[in-house]
C-alpha cells in the first residue's frame, strides 16, 4: 500500500465505473429516505410527468400514519412502530451482551487451556458452524413451543435471542483472538497467586478486547437482521421487530409506498448509524473470521 496510485487512463475509467456503481448501491437508500418524506402526489408517477427525484415538499405525513397505532410498554403509551424499534434494539443488545460474555470465556478456555475433550468440543463448534442456520428453523419452533417460550410476547423475544447466542461463530472468533494471549503472562499471573477468574479479567481480557469489540458489532448487526428467525418466532404484534413490522405493513398495504418507506427508514437508519460508528471493528471481525476459516 506504500506505492502511490498513478493517474493512467485505466485508473480514470475504473474510477468513473466505481463511482457509477457506488451511486447504484446508494440509490435504494436514498430512495427510502426521500420516499419516507414525500407526499402522496410525489410518490405516484403519472403518465407524462417527470419523476420527483427530490421531494418537492418535506412532509411528515407518512411518519404520522406509521405512528398512529398505539401500544403500551412498561405502562408507557407509545406508537406500535416505536415498540417494534425497541424490540429490535432489545434483541440486538441482549444477544450481543450474552454472546460476548459466553464466547469470550469459551474462546479463552479453548485456546489457552489443555483439558479432556477439548478437541471434540472444538470440532463440534466448527462442524455446526458449517451447517446452514436456517434448516433448524422448524425444529427450533417446536422446541420453543415445548418450552412455552412462544406463548408470551417476552418469551418469544427470548426465543429469537437464544439461538443467535448459541451460534458458534462467536466462540470460534474469540478462540482466534485468544491464541494471541502470551502463555508466559498467564503463567506469571498464576505464580503471583491470581485465581482463574482474576487471571482472565486482568490478563486475558485487556488483550482480547479488540476481538470482543469486533464480535459485539458483528452480533448486533446479525441479530438485528436475523429475519427468518424473527418471522417464525414473533407472531404477536407487540413482539415484532421493526423489520418484521415493515414486512407486515408491506403485505397489508402494498400500495402505500410512502408509509412503507417511512417504516423502512426507521428500520435502516439506526443500524446504518451503528455500523458507521463501529466500522473499524467490523472490518477486523470479518477478516479475522476468514483468515483461518
Amino acid at each position, binding site marked *: 500500500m506504500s506505492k502511490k496510485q498513478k493517474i493512467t487512463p485505466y485508473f480514470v475509467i475504473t474510477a468513473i465505473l466505481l463511482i457509477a456503481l457506488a451511486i447504484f448501491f446508494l440509490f435504494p437508500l436514498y430512495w427510502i429516505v426521500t420516499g419516507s418524506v414525500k407526499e402522496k402526489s410525489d410518490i405516484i408517477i403519472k403518465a407524462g410527468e417527470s419523476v420527483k427525484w427530490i421531494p418537492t415538499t418535506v412532509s411528515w405525513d407518512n411518519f404520522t400514519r406509521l405512528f398512529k397505532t398505539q401500544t403500551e410498554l412498561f405502562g408507557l403509551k407509545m406508537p406500535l412502530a416505536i415498540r417494534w424499534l425497541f424490540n429490535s434494539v432489545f434483541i440486538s443488545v441482549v444477544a450481543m451482551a450474552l454472546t460476548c460474555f459466553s*464466547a469470550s470465556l469459551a474462546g479463552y478456555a479453548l485456546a489457552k487451556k489443555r483439558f479432556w475433550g477439548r478437541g471434540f468440543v472444538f470440532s463440534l463448534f466448527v462442524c455446526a458452524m458449517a*451447517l446452514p442456520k*436456517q434448516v433448524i428453523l422448524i425444529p427450533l419452533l*417446536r422446541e420453543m413451543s415445548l418450552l412455552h417460550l412462544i406463548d408470551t410476547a417476552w418469551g418469544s423475544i427470548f426465543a429469537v435471542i437464544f439461538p443467535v447466542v448459541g451460534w458458534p461463530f462467536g466462540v470460534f472468533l474469540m478462540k482466534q483472538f485468544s491464541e494471541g494471549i502470551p502463555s508466559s503472562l498467564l503463567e506469571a499471573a498464576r505464580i503471583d497467586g491470581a485465581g482463574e477468574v482474576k487471571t482472565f479479567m486482568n490478563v486475558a481480557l485487556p488483550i482480547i478486547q479488540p476481538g470482543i469489540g469486533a464480535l459485539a458489532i458483528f452480533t448486533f448487526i446479525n441479530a438485528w437482521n436475523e429475519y427468518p428467525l424473527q418471522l417464525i418466532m414473533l407472531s404477536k404484534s407487540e413482539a415484532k421487530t421493526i423489520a*418484521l413490522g415493515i414486512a407486515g405493513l408491506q403485505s397489508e398495504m402494498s400500495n402505500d409506498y410512502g408509509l412503507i418507506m417511512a417504516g423502512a427508514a426507521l428500520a435502516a437508519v439506526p443500524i446504518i448509524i451503528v455500523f458507521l460508528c463501529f466500522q473499524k471493528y467490523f472490518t477486523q471481525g470479518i477478516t479475522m473470521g476468514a483468515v483461518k476459516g
Partner: protein
Amino acid sequence: MATTNAPKRSLVLQRRETIISYLFLLPALFFFVGFVLTPMAMGVITSFTNSNFNNVNTGSQFVFLDNYIRLFKDPIFLKSAWNTVVIVVVAVPTVTAFSLWVGSAIYRMHSAARSFFRCVFYLPVVTGSVAVVVVWKWMFDKYNGLFNYIIRAMGGQGLMWTESEKMALWCIILILFTTSIGQPIVLYVSALGNVDHSLVEAAQVDGATDFQVFWKIKWPSIMPTTLYVAVITTINSFQCFALIQLLTSGGPNYSTSTVMYYLYEIAFRTTKDFGYADAMGVILAIVIALFSALQFKVMNGGTTE
C-alpha cells in the same frame, strides 16, 4: 504443559484444569447445545416421521425414507431445486469476479477513498433484507416503479419484472448480488494488502506488465481468499430466503421458489408437513455441508497470513 514428571500430581492438576475449563465453557455450551445442537438432532429425527400440524402433539410414526422418496417425485421440489442451482451457478462467479475487481481497484487508493467504497458496497448487507427488498419492490412496480418509468421515458414498453415468470428469478439474483458483494470486497482488500510487495516490485523491475503481475503474483497469493469467498457465497446463495419471501413469495407459479423457500412454505403456509419439510432441510444441509467441508479443507491447507 500437561505432561510432568510427577504423574500423580499432574493427574490432580489435569482434573482441576478440566473442571475449570468446562466452567468457562458452560455458558456457551448451554446456548449451543440447547438451541443449536438439539434442534439439529430433532430435525434429522423428524425427517424420518410423518409428523405434521395435526399429529404433532398426539404422536407421529416412523416412515423411514418415505419423505426422501417423495421429494424426488415432487415437481415443485424439483423446480425449486433447479432454481436454487440457477441462483448459485449465476451468483457465485459474478459475485467473486466482481468483488475481486472492486477489491483490486480500491485497495491501493487513499485510505479515505478505500473506506468510502468498502462502506458503500457493504451498506446493503447492513441495511437488512427487509428494507432493501421493500425499496426494490417499489422500483420494480409496474405502475409506480422507477425502472418502468425510465423505460417509458425512453419510449419503450413497461416490463412485468417480478410478476413475469421469465424475469422474476433474475430480479431476485440482482438483489442477491447487491447484498452479497460487501463481505467479499472487505476480504479481498485485506488479502491484496497482504500480498508481499517486494515480489511485486521485483517483477516490475524485471519489466513485467500489470497483467503479468496480477496473474503470476497476486492471483496465486490471494487464492485462499478466492476459495473462501466462493464458498461463503455458495452457502449464502443456497440459503437465499428472505428476498424471495418478501419480493415474490416464490411466485409467479413457483418460478422463484428455492429449496429454502419451499421448505418454509410447506412447514408454515400450506400443508404443515413437518417431517417432509425437515427432509428437505436435511438434504439442503448435506449439500451445503459438502461445500463447507471443501472450505475447511482449503482453509487448513494454506492461509493468507
